[in-house]
C-alpha cells in the first residue's frame, strides 16, 4: 500500500464532502413521506455499506493471514476490523436518530438493527482479543473475523427473511433517480474517508510490526 495513498484519500474526502452536503441539502427534493429528516439517509446508508465492506475486507484478510501467515494481511485485517467499529458506531447511532424521527421509536429490535449490532459486537470482540488477548490469541481472533465476515450476507438477507418494519433492501431501487444519484454522490466522500482511515491504520500497524521485529532482534 503506497505511503501517500492515505493522504490522497483523506484529501479527496475533505474535498468531496462540501459539494456532497450541498447536493444533499440544496439540490435534492425532500422525500414526501418522511420529510426533511430523510436527509440522514444519504450518510447513514453509505456508512452502513462501508461498514459491511470493511467487515468483508477484514474477514478475507484474516483468512489470508490464517492460511498463509502473511503479516501484511494481518495488518489489513486489524485495520479494517477497527474501522468496522468506527463505521458501526456511526451506523448504530445515526440509525436510531432517524428511526426516532420516522418510526417514533429509536430501536425496534428489527432484524437488520439486531444483525448490525451483532456484527459490531463480533468485531468488538475481535479488536478486544487482538488488543488484550494473550500470545496465541491472534489465530482465534482471525477465525472470529472470518466468521464475522460470514455474518455480512446474513445481515443483508435478514430483512427479507424476517419481514419487519425496516425499509426493505430494495429501497435504493424505488428511490427517484435524483435521490439515487445523490446517494451515490454522498457515498464518495464517506468511502474515501473510510478507505483513508483503513490506509492510515494499516501503515501504523505495519510500522508497529517492524518495531516489534526490531525489539526482538535487539533482545537476541
Amino acid at each position, binding site marked *: 500500500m503506497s505511503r501517500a495513498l492515505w493522504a490522497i484519500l483523506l484529501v479527496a474526502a475533505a474535498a468531496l464532502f462540501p459539494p456532497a452536503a450541498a447536493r444533499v441539502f440544496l439540490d435534492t427534493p425532500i422525500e414526501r413521506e418522511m*420529510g*426533511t*429528516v430523510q*436527509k*440522514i439517509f444519504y*450518510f*447513514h446508508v453509505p*456508512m452502513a455499506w462501508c461498514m459491511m465492506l470493511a467487515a468483508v475486507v477484514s474477514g478475507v484478510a484474516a483468512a489470508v493471514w490464517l492460511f498463509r501467515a502473511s503479516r501484511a494481511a494481518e495488518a489489513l485485517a486489524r485495520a479494517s476490523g*477497527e474501522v468496522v467499529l*468506527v463505521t458501526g*458506531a*456511526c451506523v448504530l*447511532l*445515526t440509525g436510531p*436518530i*432517524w428511526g*426516532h*424521527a420516522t418510526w417514533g421509536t429509536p430501536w425496534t429490535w428489527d432484524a437488520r438493527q439486531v444483525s448490525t449490532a451483532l456484527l459490531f459486537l463480533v468485531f468488538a470482540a475481535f479488536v478486544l482479543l487482538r488488543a488484550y488477548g494473550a500470545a496465541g490469541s491472534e489465530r482465534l481472533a482471525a477465525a472470529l473475523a472470518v466468521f464475522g465476515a460470514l455474518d455480512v450476507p446474513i445481515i443483508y438477507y435478514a430483512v427479507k427473511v424476517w419481514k419487519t418494519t425496516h425499509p426493505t433492501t430494495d429501497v435504493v431501487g424505488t428511490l427517484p433517480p435524483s435521490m439515487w444519484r445523490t446517494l451515490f454522490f454522498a457515498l464518495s466522500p464517506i468511502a474515501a*474517508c473510510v478507505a483513508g*482511515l483503513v490506509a*492510515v*491504520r494499516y501503515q*501504523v500497524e505495519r*510500522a*508497529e510490526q517492524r*518495531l516489534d521485529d*526490531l*525489539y526482538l532482534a*535487539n533482545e537476541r
Partner: protein
Amino acid sequence: MRTGSLSQQAAAPPSGDGYEKVVGRDLRSIELERQIEARAAAKTASDYAHIVWAYGILWSVVALYVLYLYRRVLRLRRDMEGMLPKDAPP
C-alpha cells in the same frame, strides 16, 4: 361547495350604510392555516434537530478515531526514537 384548503368566501351584499364587508378569508380558515403552518414548522424544526444530532455524532465518532490514530502515531514515533540511539553507529 368549499373545496381546497382556504377558498374565498362569496362577496357579501352591500349593507347600505356606506361600509362594505371585507371580502376575504374567515377566521376558521386562517386558524386552520396557522395550525397547519405551526405543525409543519414543528416537524421541520424537529427534522433539523435530528439531522444536526445525526451528523454531529457521525463526524464526532470519526474525529475521535482520528485523534486515537494521531496519539498512536505519536507513541509509535516516540518508541522509534527510543530505539534509534541503540542501533545508531557511534
